[in-house]
């Protein structure tokens, strides 16, 4: 039993979560069966979309629930991928890929934590935070370009597919099916973890900060610490997603840290529904899949349509697709204003 600290979201919201769980179970079940009915390119590419989805969920936690927008998620993602690439060359007693995954989580979390605490503790306003995260992603891109001895510069870096080891047994992930069944459970795990985080006391305080930071502060919560923690969790997940992306795609280049990719994540989350983890995940998967498909047919017009959809979502459909389907995010606004 958790004590309710911040005003509980309405009953409708609890309904949303229940229905989201049902949808999530169906979606993940369908994804688990996918390699049985499809093969080839689909099985290769879906894990990549899922990793985009993981990245999108890292942003949804921060933006949809914490009200803090980051234009720099790609920086953590790219650092994770580079960590994976570098670690594969190390000679270690344990599986270097495991070490790389841990490093990517640690680097993403630590960098976000340090930057976050540095800014939030001084009360840097949200819009300025966006600019700093944007600068962070530009700096990461520039550094990966300039340190070409380590990163390969513009040419990027090849990364071998990792293998899973359990004691003496090992499973090579260079085939797509084992890779698929490695990334899918991890994605589900991150989804479940974030659901748990949001349902916890911490999650409630975070939502409270989104709704009214001053009030939460006056209730005695040190909001800068909560915001820092949210950013650190977000950075850590983005780092993990990036490390897996690196080994899945077998390649990383500086543009992965760039502004364009960084803001692409914002578009996915906005369209999918920033206040829904599943919506963000599926937003990333859906938009990335559509992009991939339509880019072959009509690259320019598709990007244009995507931009227009983004503007419309921001103007009129705050909840994105998930909100429109659930019809539940809209009533929450007036609720906050009145009480």
């Amino acid at each position, binding site marked *: 039993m958790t004590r309710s600290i911040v005003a509980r979201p309405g009953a409708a919201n609890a309904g949303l979560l229940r229905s989201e769980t049902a949808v999530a179970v169906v979606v993940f079940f369908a994804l688990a069966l996918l390699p049985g009915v499809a093969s080839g390119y689909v099985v290769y590419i879906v894990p990549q979309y899922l990793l985009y989805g993981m990245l999108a969920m890292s942003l949804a936690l921060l933006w949809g629930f914490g009200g803090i927008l980051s234009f720099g998620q790609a920086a953590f993602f790219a650092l994770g991928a580079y960590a994976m690439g570098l670690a594969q060359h190390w000679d270690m007693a344990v599986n270097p890929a495991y070490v790389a995954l841990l490093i990517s989580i640690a680097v993403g979390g630590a960098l976000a934590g340090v930057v976050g605490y540095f800014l939030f503790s001084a009360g840097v306003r949200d819009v300025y935070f966006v*600019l*700093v995260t944007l600068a962070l992603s530009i700096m990461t891109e520039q*550094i990966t370009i300039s340190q070409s001895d380590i990163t390969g510069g513009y040419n990027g870096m090849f990364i071998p597919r990792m293998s899973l080891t359990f004691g003496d047994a090992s499973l090579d992930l260079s085939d797509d099916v084992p890779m698929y069944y490695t990334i899918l459970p991890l994605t589900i795990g991150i989804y479940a973890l974030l659901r748990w985080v949001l349902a916890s006391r911490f999650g409630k305080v975070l939502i409270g900060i989104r709704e009214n930071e001053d009030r939460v502060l006056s209730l005695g919560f040190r909001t800068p610490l909560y915001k820092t923690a949210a950013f650190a969790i977000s950075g850590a997940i983005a780092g993990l997603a990036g490390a897996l992306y690196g080994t899945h795609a077998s390649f990383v280049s500086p543009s992965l840290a760039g502004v364009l990719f960084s803001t692409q994540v914002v578009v996915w989350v906005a369209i999918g529904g920033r206040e829904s983890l599943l919506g963000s995940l599926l937003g990333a998967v859906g938009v990335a899949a559509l992009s991939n498909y339509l880019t072959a047919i009509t690259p320019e017009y598709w*990007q244009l349509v995507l*931009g*227009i959809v983004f503007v419309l979502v921001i103007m009129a459909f705050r909840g994105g697709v998930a909100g429109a389907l659930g019809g539940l995010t809209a009533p929450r606004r007036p609720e906050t204003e009145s009480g």
Partner: protein
Amino acid sequence: MQTALSVLVDSTLITFVFALAAIGLAIIFGLMGVINMGHGAMLTLGAYFTWYTTSAGVPFAVAVLLAACGVGLIGLLLEHFIIRHFYDRQFETLLLTWGFFLVSTEIIKIVFGTDLRTVTNPLPGAAHLGPIVVPAYQGVVALISLGLLVGFALLLFRTTVGIKIRALVQNAEIASLLGLNVGQAYKLVFVTGSAAAGLAGGLISPMLSVDPYIGNVFLVRSFFVVIIGGIGQVLGGTLVGSFLIGGSETLFALVSGQVVAQTIVFALAILVLRFRPTGVLRAE
């Protein structure tokens, strides 16, 4: 001595280029508080309009003015149909102006193509002032940049329109009670800022090769220029900010690589943002 002088000239010229690129943002963001993430796209549009009209045979100076008018018109449409409904929601304007960037970049790609375009330098050659050598075009652009800054400062502090805008910036509600048409004044400021960005894009176009993302080079830097110089400090703030963001990069690049210099400058800008969020020139 010779190198010291040329570094000085370089860093002065770059300071003025950055100031020029930032003027539009200093107006829209500095005065109105609108986080215009479409600022880079406005610079890009200005550059493309200039490229398009000069390659159709229009003289460069006219082309740049046309670019300013064109981007001003786009700013008017953007403000009228979208931005004006969101003035009280800073976060939404940030996202919407980013949406403007996404959409206009794609339109640029469709209309003008993705190839690199070059605008011929209208003033090749260099001026020799004693031992100092100044590339003629860059020199003229620096003068225009300074002229624009002084012009806007005079407009703001020496004219009736300026008083109205300052009243709006200080307290929009009271200004409107005193009979100021707030909606119209916001529109005027937004369009002026857009036109200034278009003008800057046009003037910068001969110095770089024009591609659909050319303006983004200046997006974050322009924000840093405005924030670090001090929001609302159109003349002094923009110049000081431009020197710290642009001019100092040249100085750092002397001792380190260009890329490292840029990273140092960004890091310093973040430090300033953290410790002096009101900017270098503001006392409060």
